């Protein structure tokens, strides 16, 4: 375990070189918050509630989603990892007594930790801008549950991204797949619009998939909505993590045999 903590530490350390880029990047997801602000203000002109949410709740929903989204850093790591496989630099994971999955997870968490500092700053700015419109957490309990589920969502996302990166062993270039993946996840996780606006049967199906719990449910829990779904959500997430973890290990041991280490 200590070796993976050191992996996380070195990930944080190497991030510090890119302070400027990280700072700028932290405001990116919040651009969507401004778009949402103008869109929903218009839609709310003659209504006070939509899908069980008031306008300040809706705005808060987008801010919380953007916050969670910013902390998910494994997406960018896929490019790095797949590049290492494609260009033959993956060797460094093979020759050392270290698991690439552990490496991926902790490098990703290291990045998340570092981005947290800047993202909190960005959220602070956004809250100041929308003063009076931002709703605080419904209760301490709902905040804790929201954080816990969001963290599990982060782990699922890391595993999914690791699986995507592994595909580079077989298909060499995975750009298209990864972009498609990102867009689908954005929709399914409720980052684009609250899933409560979708038909009931669709929501019913989505409850069995992890995406529902990545942003939508944590943001809803934060607002004090859907608290009765929290424990089912925890169960679903834990099951998905176990399944994806097993699949990742299985595929890695099959795919690494395809590795030819080009370029030397």
């Amino acid at each position: 375990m200590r070796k993976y903590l050191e992996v996380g530490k070195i990930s944080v350390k190497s991030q510090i070189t890119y302070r400027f880029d990280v700072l700028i990047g932290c405001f990116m997801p919040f651009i969507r918050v401004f778009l949402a602000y103008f869109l929903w203000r218009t839609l709310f002109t003659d209504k006070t509630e939509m899908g069980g949410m008031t306008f300040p709740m809706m705005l808060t929903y987008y801010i919380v989603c953007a916050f969670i989204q910013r902390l998910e850093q494994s997406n960018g790591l896929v490019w790095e990892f797949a590049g290492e496989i494609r260009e033959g630099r993956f060797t460094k994971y093979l020759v050392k007594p270290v698991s690439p999955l552990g490496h991926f997870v902790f490098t990703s968490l290291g990045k998340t930790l570092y981005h947290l500092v800047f993202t909190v700053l960005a959220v602070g700015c956004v809250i100041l801008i929308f003063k009076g419109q931002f709703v605080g957490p419904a209760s301490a309990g709902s905040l804790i549950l929201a954080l816990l589920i969001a963290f599990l969502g982060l782990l699922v996302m890391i595993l999914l991204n690791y699986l995507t990166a592994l595909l580079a062993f077989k298909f060499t270039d995975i750009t298209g797949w990864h972009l498609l993946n990102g867009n689908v996840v954005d929709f399914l996780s409720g980052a684009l619009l609250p899933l409560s606006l979708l038909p009931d049967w669709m929501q019913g199906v989505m409850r069995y998939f992890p995406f529902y719990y990545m942003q939508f449910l944590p943001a809803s829990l934060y607002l004090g909505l859907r608290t009765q779904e929290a424990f089912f959500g925890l169960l679903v997430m834990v099951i998905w993590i176990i399944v994806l973890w097993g699949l990742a290990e299985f595929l890695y041991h099959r795919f690494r045999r395809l590795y030819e280490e080009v370029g030397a």
Partner: protein
Amino acid sequence: MNTVIQTKGLTKVFKRVEKEDGLKGTLKALFKRVIVEKTALDHFDFQVEQGELLGLIGPNGAGKTTLVKLLCGIIQPSAGEAQVLGFTPGKLKDGFRRSYAVVMGQKSQLWWDLPASDTFLLNKEIYGIPDDIYKQNIAYFSDIFGVRDLLSVPVRNLSLGERMKMELMAALLHNPKILFLDEPTIGLDAIAQKQIRLFLKEVNETKGVTIMLTSHYMEDIKHLCKRTVVINGGKKVYDGNLDALLSSFQEHRIITVSFECECQPQLDLPVEWLEKSPLKSVLMVRRELVKPVIQSLLTHYEVNDIRIEEEDIGGVIERIYTAGKEGIPL
């Protein structure tokens, strides 16, 4: 003696997708893939004893790097088997990975944006190196290389030679039993090359690390390795003492003559004139003709000085490779 590396019929066949040039060829390749097989290593048998410093030479694409990759378990053999320290490399058992290290001149394990010491710390945790051994090794290696004050400089600010020293340090911190080196001196200047050579010799002698080295620079091999394996076209063409090999392929001698007065030397023997100036001539002759050529020069001209040298090593190596390719026994 203890055998640490052993291969039997080790073979690696790579599959490549071949594509015709031009847009048409690219479109064709999209629907129909032409797979071409290339044998990079062909029934390779050899063994290495503990504490050896073995050189592996051969032209580009001969299979040197493929052999190193197979022995490290990075790639899987197509046929045959390899045993390294009693392990099958391709299984990548943790115990195996703890007991060797590999340094590839073209690839880096150092974190680019961080000082080398951060990579060392990471390796300390990954290999579970105890504190005292870690400190001892850092002190030992940084003293031999004289890089103590470079440990805290970000890797991207180091020179190529300094970086290679750091690579070697990073690889050796966990006291590996075997060190695989693929072109460790590539692109380095003569001084850095020499330092690295001395370092490898020291590590081999004092720490007893078995070293297997591939290099394009004959100097590396000549200075370091008692035993050399020549490989060409995926096959072993020579295994033994480098000096013996070189002398059997030294077909020519270079003779430099300087004269007392200006003259135009002529010889009716088959010689190749490399330089002809009024007071000095340089000529290349076959070894068995050295004696008659010198006799003739001494009798016909006022000779001031004669120097006889061995032929340039590059030419010799070229001949060894060609012989290997044609299947002539060395």
